[in-house]
């Protein structure tokens, strides 16, 4: 391989942003000082254990608690009768109860809760709660749910066991397919997987004052938890304080308000003493909210040059027992198909069904890795059929910057071309793709992700993020923000941005975060929103403080305030460096002049041009892009796929801290490889004589296979920087997007290695062997689903595209026209 030319790095006069620095929570994390929720201890604290359903679908006839109540150490037992008010993360899906009042919907659904003086006592007493059930038919999967509308798992939704169905068409897809020279029709399946954060969920609730409560919890969304607690406990929000403790990993799995959080809060209020729960690892598998299993039908019409004239995607999501984020998840399976390649017309139909399994929800990439898997494999198939190199097929059809897509998403900057060029050059694609020895292969795929959702979970016009700064006379700055550190480095982003603007050190910034009583609202660590939204709010707050200080110092030194520089802990004249004051003195001068220096900054995303029903899912201030090449070795005797190397390039706009950005990218690669090759949240039937229940196949870390040190191939990571005007210092998201290209790149590499298509994940050895055997028998050189079920998706919204002169609204929906 010739040594590729290197792109020069942009130089920077910045002191902190853009340079690698020790994360601000680094010392605490390596010394054991970081306090996670289960590390908290309070005087008189008692412990809760939940009693969970042992059957997948049943009416509750009776919950007998007397024996548990009489057990040693027990101080309280609660049941569904104590929780009349339903909840759920989405306003349209208020379908959960803290403890099931009358029906259980999956093995693991909480029915009762026992509090005792010790954890051992709570666990022993929980075993003495007896629940009498009347079984109902179990709904086990997508086809089962579609084929059996009765009994309904919920009395709400879009009929039978359909939770949500959507249908929308952007442009004249029929004409597009007529125009196409090659139409590919494929069915793909993406198995469900779970987040598996190393930290088990834990919550401590502590009574405060006369009638208040503080809830410490490992949650990614303290603001939404705050609202849910107020609703379920029927308590004024002012009496509730939620403190999100640093999350020991989240990945989306701690984004819902959970049963156990509500239960311990109610217990603490009843008992007047602190109450803690820490879920067992098995229970974490039941909480789930992970990747939806999705069956997909993808039909795409290509022109001879590989450009796409029309696409029709149909998705069916196995949602599990409750709504969770599922309405959004359903839309997300269709929303981002249009953002990477020029696509003239597009149709999307989606349905989410209820099944008697733990609820699915948002996992890293939320609803988008599944259709991305189908799209990127189908592009590979089209390239083969059209005789175009897969890299060129993509490069020739890239969506340009500053485009409004067929489904009305506004794309701003895109570094996808540079991403593809980087991985193609890095892996030696031009000389190696299609030319490696049998059993060895390269696969390419791309991806795109949001930098924060355009809309909040509940409808409102307020900012999505806010930062408050208070400057003290010693030159310290306290930055308050509702953002929550889940490992992604959000604390470091906040501190770095404030320190950069004010020209002080990271150590001069003290953080107060994730506390609904003390910090302004940030909506939470989800949808890759934090760096952009918190960063922009922090810049605004810091610039306001800087202006106050500059005006005061300018008056004192008699220099124009515009000439003042804030750097190295000083405020000084640009022309005369010696003429200046320390930052602490500047604060004192400003405080003497103005009173206490407190400033705020807020961020609200721009409005999106789409105005059709469903247009709220998909918009973002800007999008990140990624490309990956995976090299694999496939053993045709065993069917085993080994990853040999991954090249990943991610357009992150600009890195706030490159070493942490690299960690986010490689962590995404890791999780993508896990989903591609091994991870699956699956279920099995117990034998009939043992109740026939539908149970989790492997609720343990040993049996749920995830990649270890030995499974990780070398990874070459390229940070592609092209500052985006929408982001703080040009930064876009980096925490989720890089997962997206990995699973399809693995599947495409398997094809390059041995010539068979595996159209589903995980790519287990038996699937590879089945595809090889099928080919040998003269059948399809493929493994994967064959059929997509018949689904009534309801009336299709007709939305003219920007190219057709549309206005962003549907022509056949009077409601969206009324709004416009």
């Amino acid at each position, binding site marked *: 391989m010739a040594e590729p030319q290197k792109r020069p790095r942009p130089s920077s006069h910045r002191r902190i942003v853009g340079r*690698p620095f020790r994360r601000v929570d680094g010392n605490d994390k390596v010394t054991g000082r970081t306090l996670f929720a289960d590390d908290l201890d309070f005087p008189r604290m008692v412990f809760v254990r939940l009693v969970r359903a042992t059957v997948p679908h049943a009416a509750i006839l009776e919950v007998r608690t007397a024996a548990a109540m009489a057990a040693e150490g027990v101080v309280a037992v609660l049941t569904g009768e104590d929780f009349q008010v339903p909840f759920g993360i989405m306003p349209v899906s208020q379908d959960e109860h803290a403890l099931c009042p009358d029906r259980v919907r999956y093995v693991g659904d909480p029915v009762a809760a026992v509090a005792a003086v010790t954890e051992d006592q709570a666990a022993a007493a929980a075993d003495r709660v007896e629940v009498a059930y009347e079984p109902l038919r179990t709904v086990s999967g997508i086809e089962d749910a579609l084929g059996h509308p009765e009994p309904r798992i919920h009395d709400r939704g879009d009929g039978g066991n359909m939770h949500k169905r959507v249908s929308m068409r952007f442009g004249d897809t029929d004409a597009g397919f007529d125009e196409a020279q090659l139409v590919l029709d494929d069915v793909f399946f993406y198995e469900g997987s779970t987040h598996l954060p190393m930290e088990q969920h834990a919550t401590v609730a502590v009574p405060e004052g006369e009638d208040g409560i503080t809830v410490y919890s490992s949650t990614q969304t303290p603001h939404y938890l705050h609202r849910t607690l107020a609703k379920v406990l029927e308590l004024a929000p002012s009496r509730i304080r939620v403190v999100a403790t640093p999350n020991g990993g989240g990945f989306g799995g701690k984004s819902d308000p959970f049963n156990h959080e509500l239960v311990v809060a109610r217990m603490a209020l009843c008992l007047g003493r602190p109450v803690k729960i820490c879920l067992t690892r098995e229970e974490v598998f039941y909480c789930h909210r992970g990747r939806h299993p999705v069956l997909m039908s993808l039909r795409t019409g290509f022109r001879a040059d590989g450009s796409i004239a029309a696409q029709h995607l149909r998705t069916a999501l196995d949602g599990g027992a409750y709504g969770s984020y599922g309405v959004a998840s359903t839309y997300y399976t269709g929303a981002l198909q249009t953002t990477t390649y020029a696509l003239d017309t597009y149709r999307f139909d989606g349905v989410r069904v209820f099944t008697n399994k733990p609820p699915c929800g948002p996992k890293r990439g939320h609803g988008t890795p599944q259709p991305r898997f189908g799209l990127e494999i189908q592009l590979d198939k089209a390239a083969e059929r059209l005789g175009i190199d897969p890299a060129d097929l993509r490069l020739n059809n890239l969506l340009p910057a500053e485009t409004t897509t067929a489904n009305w998403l506004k794309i701003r900057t895109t570094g996808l071309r540079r991403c593809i060029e980087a991985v193609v050059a890095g892996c030696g694609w031009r000389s190696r793709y299609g030319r490696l020895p049998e059993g060895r292969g390269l696969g390419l795929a791309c991806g795109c992700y949001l930098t924060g959702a355009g809309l909040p979970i509940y409808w409102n016009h307020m900012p999505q993020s806010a930062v408050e700064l208070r400057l003290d006379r010693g030159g310290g700055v306290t930055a308050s923000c509702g953002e929550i550190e889940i490992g992604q480095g959000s604390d470091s982003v906040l501190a770095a941005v404030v320190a950069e603007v004010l020209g002080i050190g990271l150590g001069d910034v003290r953080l107060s975060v994730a506390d609904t009583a003390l910090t302004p609202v940030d909506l939470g660590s989800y949808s890759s929103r934090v760096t952009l939204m918190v960063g922009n709010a922090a810049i605004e707050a810091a610039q306001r403080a800087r202006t106050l200080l500059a005006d005061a110092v300018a008056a004192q030194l008699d220099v124009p305030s515009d000439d003042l520089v804030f750097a190295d802990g000083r405020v000084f004249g640009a022309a005369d460096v010696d003429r200046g004051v320390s930052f602490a003195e500047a604060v004192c001068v400003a405080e003497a002049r103005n009173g206490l220096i407190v400033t705020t900054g807020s961020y609200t995303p721009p409005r999106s041009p789409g105005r059709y029903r469903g247009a709220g899912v998909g918009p973002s201030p800007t999008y990140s892009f990624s490309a990956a090449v995976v090299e694999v070795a496939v053993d045709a005797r065993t069917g085993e796929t080994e990853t040999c190397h991954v090249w990943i390039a991610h357009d992150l706009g600009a890195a706030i801290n490159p070493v942490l950005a690299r960690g986010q990218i490689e962590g995404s690669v890791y999780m993508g490889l896990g989903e591609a090759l091994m991870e699956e949240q699956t279920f099995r039937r117990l034998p009939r004589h043992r109740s026939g229940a539908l149970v989790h196949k492997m609720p343990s870390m040993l049996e749920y296979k995830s990649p270890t040190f030995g499974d990780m191939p070398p990874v070459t990571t390229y940070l592609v920087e092209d500052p985006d005007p929408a982001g703080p210092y040009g930064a876009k998201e980096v925490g989720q997007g890089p997962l997206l290209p990995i699973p399809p790149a693995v599947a495409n590499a398997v094809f390059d290695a041995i010539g068979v298509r595996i159209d589903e994940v995980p790519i287990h050895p038996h699937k590879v062997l089945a595809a090889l055997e099928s080919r040998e028998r003269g059948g399809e050189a493929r493994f994967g689903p064959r059929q997509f079920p018949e689904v009534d998706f309801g009336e299709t919204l007709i939305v003219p595209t920007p190219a057709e002169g549309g206005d962003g609204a549907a022509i056949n929906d009077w409601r969206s026209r009324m709004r416009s």
Partner: protein
Amino acid sequence: MSEVVRRLEINGEPRTVAFPVHHTLLEVLREECRLTGTKHGCELGECGTCTVLVDGRPVLSCLALAAEMSGRSIETVEGMADGGRLHPLQAAFADLGAAQCGYCTPGMLMAAKSLLARDPAASRAEIDDCLGGNLCRCTGYHLIVEAVEWAARELSGAAGARPPREVFYGAAEPVSDDG
């Protein structure tokens, strides 16, 4: 439930602790001794998160009975720094983003420390092998391996040697194809 009393030596500090006889070392460290730096991920011996050192060897504290720890030297993450000075492994983990959420970090640090004590020049394969029983969901592992390698160089006296630029910035982006 019967209680036992044991004299335990934790991070060089002897202390007498009473606890239920069936309690694991993990429980006694976290609950009776309030040393919550040691974390738990499964309490079944599957994830490595609760790794501590017993007489210098890594042990899954969720599978060890505290009652059997008399007279043995127990080391946890709280005992790793020298006063206010971080151990080179800790510093490397903090600087290289080897700790993201930080939850698996104490266990990783303990396992890595025992390896470097045995073999300061451990190869990448040996690091992979030694840490293979510790799961991390955040990093993709490479930053952890690089942190251990960097700390090893530091410990063996090669002070001042910084990891190469791509460790911090990612690989240099190629602009043209190698055709």
